């Protein structure tokens, strides 16, 4: 019994067995090949779906300008040239052109920002998405995991109840409600935070305290919103995993052997966190989709906002490009998650000794 437990504890917490470099290369190559096929399939499906979305982008742009008070003459002039940016030819011809462009890393030119390369727009938006969403994801993961462990250990006490309740409450509140609430409190009623934009335009961009401080200041509410919105999921998942691990024999054995509390805690946390790594990796992959509501509420010009704007303006090239980036993000995250999981959990390593 003791010997079995020892093996299990070691296998879960200290992956030591190693595959041959050839096997690793073969595994990575397999993942990459599957990933490329996945990207091609998604790119093809999204290409067809995008072209089938009803609505005339130029007419939409014209009427939007009219709605904003522009005279018909001005609106006509402003939109007439946009027809030149629309794709032409049959669907099949467009598809072949699209795939050919993709092979040359050319995502085409935007209709909603006429004349500007889609890659430029995505690159510009990505930096406003990746950092805040990444910070929010990691922060919520960190908080959720730590608090989840405490909530499980103290599940019969008041602290455990409070932590579990906070997780359930925040998990149930939609992200836009949290965002609007924070904006109302900290940007309107008690205006200590900026209500929109990624940085104050008065600061000269560069590595100067004013600019960096303004960046951080503007990122606070979006990051806090994202953290609060995802925190509930992490804490509940972690609590549930920890409770399951707590019932395992090897924990009982560790306690009976009189191991230090810190070591037991590490056993618990490292075993309970395993399933969450996959979700974390996927969440990081998903961050390329941006967080539409947060970006909308805080006027944060990230990928989510770009995607929504491209859909409402029927900017086919931009829509396709954004979908592609999201797809690549998720596929890469999947591959990384697979590889990571293989590395940290020997049980899933094919041909492993565990």
């Amino acid at each position, binding site marked *: 019994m003791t010997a079995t437990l020892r093996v299990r504890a070691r296998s879960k917490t200290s992956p030591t067995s190693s595959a041959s470099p050839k096997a690793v290369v073969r595994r990575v190559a397999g993942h990459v090949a599957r990933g490329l096929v996945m990207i091609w399939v998604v790119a093809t499906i999204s290409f067809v779906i995008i072209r089938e*979305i*009803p*609505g*005339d*982008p130029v*007419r*939409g*742009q014209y*009427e939007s300008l*009219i709605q*904003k*008070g*522009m*005279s*018909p*003459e*001005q609106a*006509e*002039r*402003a*939109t*007439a*040239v946009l027809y*030149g*940016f629309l794709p032409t030819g049959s669907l099949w011809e467009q598809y072949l052109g699209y795939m050919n462009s993709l092979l040359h890393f050319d995502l085409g030119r935007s209709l909603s*920002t*006429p*004349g*500007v390369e889609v890659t430029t727009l995505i690159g*510009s938006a990505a930096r*406003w998405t990746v950092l805040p969403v990444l910070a929010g994801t990691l922060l919520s993961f960190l908080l959720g995991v730590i608090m989840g462990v405490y909530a499980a250990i103290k599940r019969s006490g008041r602290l455990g109840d409070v932590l579990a309740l906070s997780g359930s409450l925040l998990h149930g509140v939609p992200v836009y409600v949290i965002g*609007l609430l924070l904006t109302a409190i900290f*940007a*309107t009623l008690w*205006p200590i935070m900026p*209500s*929109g*934009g*990624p*940085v*104050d*335009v*008065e*600061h*000269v961009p560069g590595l100067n*305290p*004013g600019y960096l*401080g*303004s*960046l*951080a*200041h*503007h990122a*606070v509410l979006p990051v806090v919103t994202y953290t609060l919105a995802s925190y509930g999921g992490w804490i509940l998942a972690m609590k549930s995993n920890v409770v399951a691990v707590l019932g395992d024999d090897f924990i009982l054995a560790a306690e009976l052997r009189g191991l230090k509390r810190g070591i037991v805690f590490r056993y618990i946390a490292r075993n309970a966190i395993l399933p969450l790594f996959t979700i974390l990796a996927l969440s990081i992959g998903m961050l390329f989709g941006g967080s539409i509501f947060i*970006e909308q*509420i805080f*006027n944060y*010009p990230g990928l989510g*906002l770009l995607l929504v704007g491209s859909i*409402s303006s029927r900017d086919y090239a931009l829509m396709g490009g954004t979908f592609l980036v999201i797809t690549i993000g998720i596929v890469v995250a999947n591959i990384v998650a697979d590889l990571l999981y293989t590395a940290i959990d020997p049980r899933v390593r094919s041909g492993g000794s565990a």
Partner: protein
Amino acid sequence: MKRLAAIVALATFATATACGTTGTTEAAQTAGGGVYTTIDGSKQINASAPINPFNPVGSVFAGYNGMALAWPKNDPVDPNRFYPGLADSWTTTPDQSEVVIHLQPDARWSDGKPVTSEDVRVSIGLAYTQGGTAYALDPRAAGAAADIQVVDAKTIKITQGANRSGMFLSNLLSTVVVPAHVFGGLLPSDFWQTLKVAQDGAGPAAETAKAEITGLAEKVIAFTPERDVSAGPFVLERVNPGAALLKRNPYFYDSAAIVPDKVKVLNYTGNEQIWNYLIAGKLDNAPFTSVPSAVMERIRAAGGSKVIKGYSPVATSMAFNQSHKPYDNVHVRRALAYLIDRAQVTKIASPEGGTPAVTTSGIHAKAARAWLDGGFDRLDPYRVDAAKAEAELRAAGMTKRNGRWALPGGKPWKVRIHVPASFSDWVAAAKSISSQLGDHGIDATVVTAADYTLYLGELADGKYDVAFWLIGLGPSPYNIFQRLYGQANGWQMFGGRLSHVPPGTQGNWMGGPETVEAGADGTVNPGELTSRLSYTGPEERKRIVGVLARLTNEQLPVIQLWDYVNTQFANTSRYTAFPPDDHDALRLSSGVWMQLGMIKKRQV
């Protein structure tokens, strides 16, 4: 945990640093005029877009770093009234066949070079690549410029083609002027010869020339100057996705009139951001935004908050697809008009930004009174009258069973009112109407489209029976009636020739008849009359407006619901001297107000 504590401490420090520095670094460098903060309602800021006025989302802001020859006054009937811009003055022949423009003698670009007639000529050349009425390549198009002649460095003469239009001056003065030394390279050296061939030539040579010129359009629109060169009171300093910052142009011809040192144009992705800015008192001025009553109260409560109201030549209507039964029957349309309480609809949908339509004429009431004189009061006001509505429905062959109206064949009548989901005022109005119709035994529902582009696409495809539609886009009477008797109703202009296409084709979703019996006015072709508005003389124009207004009132292709009110928000905490209510510059940007000598620093 120690590491976590260190991260938290670092984040707190960064936040504190940010709180301490935001808005201070460069504000401190201003010379006392301060930073004027506003919103550009015509477009969202796009930091990736070029500093190019030909790009629809370019970082050029009208009145600040974007200059036109002149700025249109908000006149209900006359589209040819303008404030000077880069044009100091202008003269025109009575038929607008010839316009001579005198530029501001002291106008200079922000790099110190003078603004000359050559700049205007190049700007017009570039405008030809983009199309537009005054710069149409088709010589048969009404109101197209035929010849551009540089008289001297500050004077330019433009001649109108044979097919004259009363909008020529207006279209000409709206020309945005760009520096020839920056944009001039976009025009090939033989551009003007090519233009001549395109306009005066015939056959394949003319077609090739036209293709050459329109082929330049994308190049022009995508052109990215390295830096802003502006003839306006401001020049773009920098732009990020959240805002654009403009600083004073020291070479502006009337620099003494400009008070703020800088202008910050904030971006927005939704109306609620503008509301928050206004409630927090951060904006010195913001254009009209649809605002719920509760939010309006909070905006008014902000220190220094001020609401300025004036005329806005736009109206909202409920339009019918006359190729769908029973809306092909004028009695049905009239019945609905008699049942809808427009005051109630406006109170619910647009209490701040609209006034209930006095009647349906296709024109905003203020402009309609000016165009029609006493004739406006003789139009049927369609006051709520259930008895008249019932009589109209019976005249249409409708029957009432168990308190519900049914179609002539006995089938249930379901009125589906379509609106885009994103237009909250229209959705509220449609719901109010459906409720009112329900009270009178008509089964009405509101159907929303996911977004405006989808809405317009389905509308153009003729999928809707009843839908909301903007009308009355003045001041040009042609523009006003073109919304009712233009492409949406089957009339199309190709190569200077007007034709009418069948309902359900080429965007004809209103499906009205090509000719209509209009009582004392006889048989009229409303599309043809509308087309004549673009080139006919003042007397005839007034007569046609009268005919079309009466026809619209009788035939009701739409039911006019409310006329918009231009509601501007201002905050007098930092600046004063905003234009008063009903000022004819109210629809122009704050940058133009500054050019006109408005906007002064508040004296503490």
